[in-house]
């Protein structure tokens, strides 16, 4: 177990180093002069020279990378051009907002998807199964930004039940925060909800065909005990794997949902940075997000042992 965790940790570190290479090269795939692109056409030659020097862009590539990498190891992502503040500090104020939304969305999607998938599998072919399957298919196909706009139109503009957009800290005004978070969290939950439902339905269908389920039934167990006691724990393993991947989708979805609902999280922050050509922010966002995703996947891998005792972590 310990060797497995150490191996996976080393692997994660290696992957993060590669991510840093990708993030670093962003600045260098900009056609033309990256400094001019970042500062815009009105910048004076002196400003350009200062920034070029500040970013060490006048040094050899390898030196640049080593310096950038040692800086980010110390939590220094550089200074934003747009905000004139440290990128790390800016990220620190936005990350909790995205976490907050993502956490609610993850809970929501897990709590609904697994029972929905199981019911759908157990009652295969029934009307309920069809409704669940069709909804899951729609959930995989719906553009999140459009769903958000539909929500705003009906629940905020027409019915007036919820605020149109915005975000207030739950510590300032919990009630307003709850009302503001409902729609974005639901939108964010749609993709994980749909794909986890599909996955739990299909792995449940796979499991209830197995011999040990037949044995459990033939020894006279109640159907409920067969499903919740014998089938569910086996069916849930692939669902847990998918949960790790869903985290990536949640972060990806935050780009759209935060933009539509005007929420100051990582997603909308990165979008604004991208369009203002503030690439130091973009690099910082990518590194932080990759770190979160990689750690979550690590946690998922380690949690396997609980769901599947056959996994002994030897290889």
């Amino acid at each position, binding site marked *: 177990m310990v060797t497995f965790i150490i191996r996976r940790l080393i692997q994660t570190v290696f992957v993060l180093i590669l991510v840093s290479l990708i993030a670093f090269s*962003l600045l260098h795939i900009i056609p033309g002069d990256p400094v001019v692109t970042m500062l815009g056409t009105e910048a004076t030659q002196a400003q350009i020279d200062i920034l070029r020097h500040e970013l060490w862009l006048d040094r050899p590539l390898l030196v640049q990378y080593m310096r950038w990498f040692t800086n980010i190891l110390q939590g220094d992502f550089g200074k934003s051009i747009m905000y004139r503040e440290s990128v790390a500090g800016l990220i620190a104020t936005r990350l909790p907002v995205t976490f907050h939304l993502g956490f609610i969305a993850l809970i929501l999607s897990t709590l609904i998807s697994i029972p929905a998938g199981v019911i759908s599998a157990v009652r295969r072919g029934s009307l309920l199964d069809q409704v669940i399957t069709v909804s899951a298919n729609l959930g995989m*196909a719906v553009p999140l*930004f*459009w769903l958000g706009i539909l929500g705003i*139109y009906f629940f905020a503009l027409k019915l007036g039940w919820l605020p149109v957009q915005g975000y207030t800290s739950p510590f300032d005004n919990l009630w307003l925060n709850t009302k503001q978070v409902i729609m974005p969290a639901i939108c964010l939950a749609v993709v994980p909800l749909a794909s986890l439902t*599909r*996955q739990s339905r299909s*792995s449940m269908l796979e499991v209830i065909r197995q011999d040990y389920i037949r044995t459990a039934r033939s020894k006279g167990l109640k159907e409920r005990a067969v499903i919740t006691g014998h089938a569910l724990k086996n069916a849930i393993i692939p669902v847990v794997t998918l949960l790790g991947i869903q985290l990536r989708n949640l972060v990806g979805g935050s*780009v759209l949902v935060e933009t539509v609902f005007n929420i100051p999280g990582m997603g909308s922050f990165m979008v604004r940075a991208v369009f203002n050509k503030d690439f130091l922010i973009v690099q910082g966002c990518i590194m932080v997000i990759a770190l979160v995703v990689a750690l979550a996947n690590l946690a998922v891998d380690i949690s396997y042992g609980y769901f599947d005792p056959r996994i002994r972590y030897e290889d």
Partner: protein
Amino acid sequence: MVTSLPQTEDLLEAPPRTNGFRRFLRVFLGRKVVLFGAVIILMLIIVAIFAALIAPYDPYQQELREALKNPSWKHLLGTDPLGRDELSRIIYGTRTSLLVGIISVGVAAFFGMMLGLIAGYLGGITNTLIMRFIDALMAIPPIMLALAIGAALGGGLSNVMISLGIALIPTYARLMCGQVLTVKQADYVTAAEVVGGSNLRIMLVHIFPNCLSPLIVLITLNLGFAILSEAALSFLGLGIRPPGAAWGSMVNDGYRYLLTNPILSFAPGLCVMLVVLAFNIVGDGLRDALDPRLRGTL
């Protein structure tokens, strides 16, 4: 590494088609829902090709006196803030969706399959390097990666296709690598090695064709995802430049007029959903048809 796409693993087990093309067609087209998806895709292609003949108006023609009209017999879906016919712009938007979908998936499939083939066949350090690089790409959500690369390259439709293509590479590389590892064990590969076939020849002639069937499913499913991502990127403002028509940017343009002209946002978004749904359904149908054991389970 324990993490991998479960769907991918399901695909990995797909046996080669044994009962022939007719069984495949019978299963594939046997279900009404798959047929529905196929018809939508066919319609999308026809509309994209004959957009100029089908569209009632010129999608770029501004008629400011007609701006922001609600749906009527003259303009079935109303007009946008510049007085352009919404329906015509949606019809021309099919071209953007389809083009970006096909090209970005093409880029992703080509490079992803090459990387997977090399990693799987050569193994060892090559495999480790390539697959860890793929892991690194996978640690970044595709939409963010595409956004960052696309913006760095300078926006525009072709840069969106490239960046989306790069963002979609990982799934192909992983699936291909897994396939190659299975196929590599086959006797005919050993035979080819014994006879003295070159690595390149064995990879391309003996291994590659035998890995294809799950990849075809992935390509179909990915077309839907690529169209969805393109819509998202153009909603955010990356991609086609005005006055070009893309569904995502049309939703965004209409957002400002949500209270008075909701159709401007609703209609193009609905089109995205329908088309993506169609590709997903057909992809699932293909999967079932190529692998009878999975029928009805996904």
